[in-house]
């Protein structure tokens, strides 16, 4: 059990450190694509630093839940990042939670955030909570289906063993993963509040989802939530990488393997972030009423992925 401890610690630390950088990288790429002068790569870290130094301003009538939620959400995201095989597949924590539980952890964070948003009782909070739940309850089944597709191939729902099987199978192409890949991309765009579902940089009341949720937070609370949001993007990117591009992960705890895995991960993330930025730059944000359609498409594609696997795989 202790064998993977170093890998596990390194994975968590990498997640904590790299997540804001990934957000910064996407923002930087977008700025380049839009011919703006780009913020530095570590801009999110600077923002976090600034926010942590400020004091907390609590709204009147805020319950203890409101103050507790940032910590809980942050904990959820760290847990999620800990059980996703980012650097190695030998993770001591991965026995704690499998793919289904991972979706549950992500859902828990969402519910907590929505509760906190409604706790204050402002109109924006409730609106954001409602929209976020709408996206969430449509996206989660699709995400589950994507994970099931991969799980069917690996005969296990534990993420680490799933990725292990996917990474070490013979040179084989799984058609079901084509569907799962498209569905997963759509879901992660929706879940992370990127264009075309949500715009992370807008405060326009007609369209915002995520920003409306966290409007009442300030100081270190806000910092934690922003950090958690970056972690969520990081987690989704890593799930995508782990499922669809699993090569280059360390199978054991040897320092050399981990040392190799880290740059590979960074390279893959950089590529993924750049693709995300391009996709965001070329697409227009859709109307909120189209979001259910969009997620229904993702769900149907994910289910077809499962079906294709059943048709071809056995």
């Amino acid at each position: 059990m202790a064998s993977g401890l170093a890998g596990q610690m390194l994975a968590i630390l990498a997640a904590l450190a790299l997540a804001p950088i990934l957000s910064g990288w996407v923002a930087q790429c977008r700025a380049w694509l839009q011919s703006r002068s780009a913020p530095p790569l570590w801009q999110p870290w600077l923002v976090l630093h600034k926010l942590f130094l400020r004091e907390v301003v609590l709204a009147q009538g805020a319950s203890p839940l409101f103050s507790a939620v940032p910590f809980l959400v942050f904990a959820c995201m760290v847990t999620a990042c800990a059980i996703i095989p980012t650097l190695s597949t030998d993770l001591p924590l991965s026995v704690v939670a499998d793919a289904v539980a991972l979706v549950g952890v992500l859902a828990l964070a969402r519910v907590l955030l929505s509760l906190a948003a409604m706790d204050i009782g402002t109109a924006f909070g409730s609106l954001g909570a409602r929209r976020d739940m709408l996206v969430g309850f449509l996206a989660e089944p699709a995400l589950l289906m994507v994970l099931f597709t991969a799980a069917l191939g690996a005969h296990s729902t534990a993420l680490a063993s799933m990725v292990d099987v996917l990474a070490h199978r013979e040179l084989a192409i799984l058609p079901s993963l084509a569907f799962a890949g498209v569905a997963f991309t759509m879901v992660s765009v929706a879940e992370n509040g990127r264009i075309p579902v949500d715009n992370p940089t807008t405060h326009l009341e007609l369209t915002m989802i995520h920003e409306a949720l966290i409007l009442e937070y300030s100081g270190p609370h806000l910092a934690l939530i922003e950090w958690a949001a970056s972690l969520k993007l990081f987690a989704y990117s890593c799930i995508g990488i782990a499922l669809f591009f699993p090569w280059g992960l360390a199978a054991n705890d040897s320092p050399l393997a981990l040392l190799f895995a880290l740059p590979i991960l960074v390279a893959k993330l950089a590529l993924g972030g750049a693709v995300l930025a391009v996709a965001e730059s070329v697409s227009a944000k859709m109307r909120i009423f189209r979001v259910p359609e969009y997620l229904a498409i993702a769900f149907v594609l994910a289910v077809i992925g499962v079906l294709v696997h059943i048709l071809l795989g056995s």
Partner: protein
Amino acid sequence: MNDLSTVGLQLIDLLAAVSLLLAFGLLIQRRLTALIDFYALQSLVLVIVTSLVGWLTGQRHLYLSAALTMVLKVLLIPILLYRLVRRLRLETSHDTLVKLPATLLLGLLLVIFAFDVARPIAQLSTAIASGTLGIALAGILVGFLMMISRSRAISQVIAFLAMENGVFLAATAVTHGMPMVVELGIAVDVLIGVLILGVFLFHLQDAADSLEAGGPASPTARLERSGPETPKPRKARTQTP
């Protein structure tokens, strides 16, 4: 069977899956020009599958079939359709999709049905890519769904062509293509059919035009409402900071 052909087989399955993916893309796409692009792409997938099967089985006539598909369905028919869309001034117009989630779920049911029907047969087949049968059948049924869920004439034409692609995918993967004479005949029929439909679309437009001068909406006017449409409200585009 060596590694190379195993990869080839899996590639065929993958391409068939991509073809089904494109069929769903056709089902949910609103923009007419994008529909044509998707169709051309689906045909291209068919070309690759056909040449791949030809390479794996060593049947020369499949290359000919692939070339025919390439010329006809990847180049000629999409170009004709593009010209049609341009002549009818439909480049920017959208097809209406009512109840998209319901249509999608129906599509899902069709896929389940197709897979269920094809499974026992796929296991019998001695052909190299037997699993493709179910995917092809699903593609045909999804094309059928598109046909009945669309109101625009040109979308219906594309749905028809997409179904035809599905049939050819099945024919290629399951039986290594039909005899060459039959394939030629089918190709000619399809080409003539598309030409006829193109002529029809023009005349339907004329009919609709003369209709707009006065008088109640007729079936044809509903079938193909022509000319530049009233621009729809643009999608809300958020400002970039």
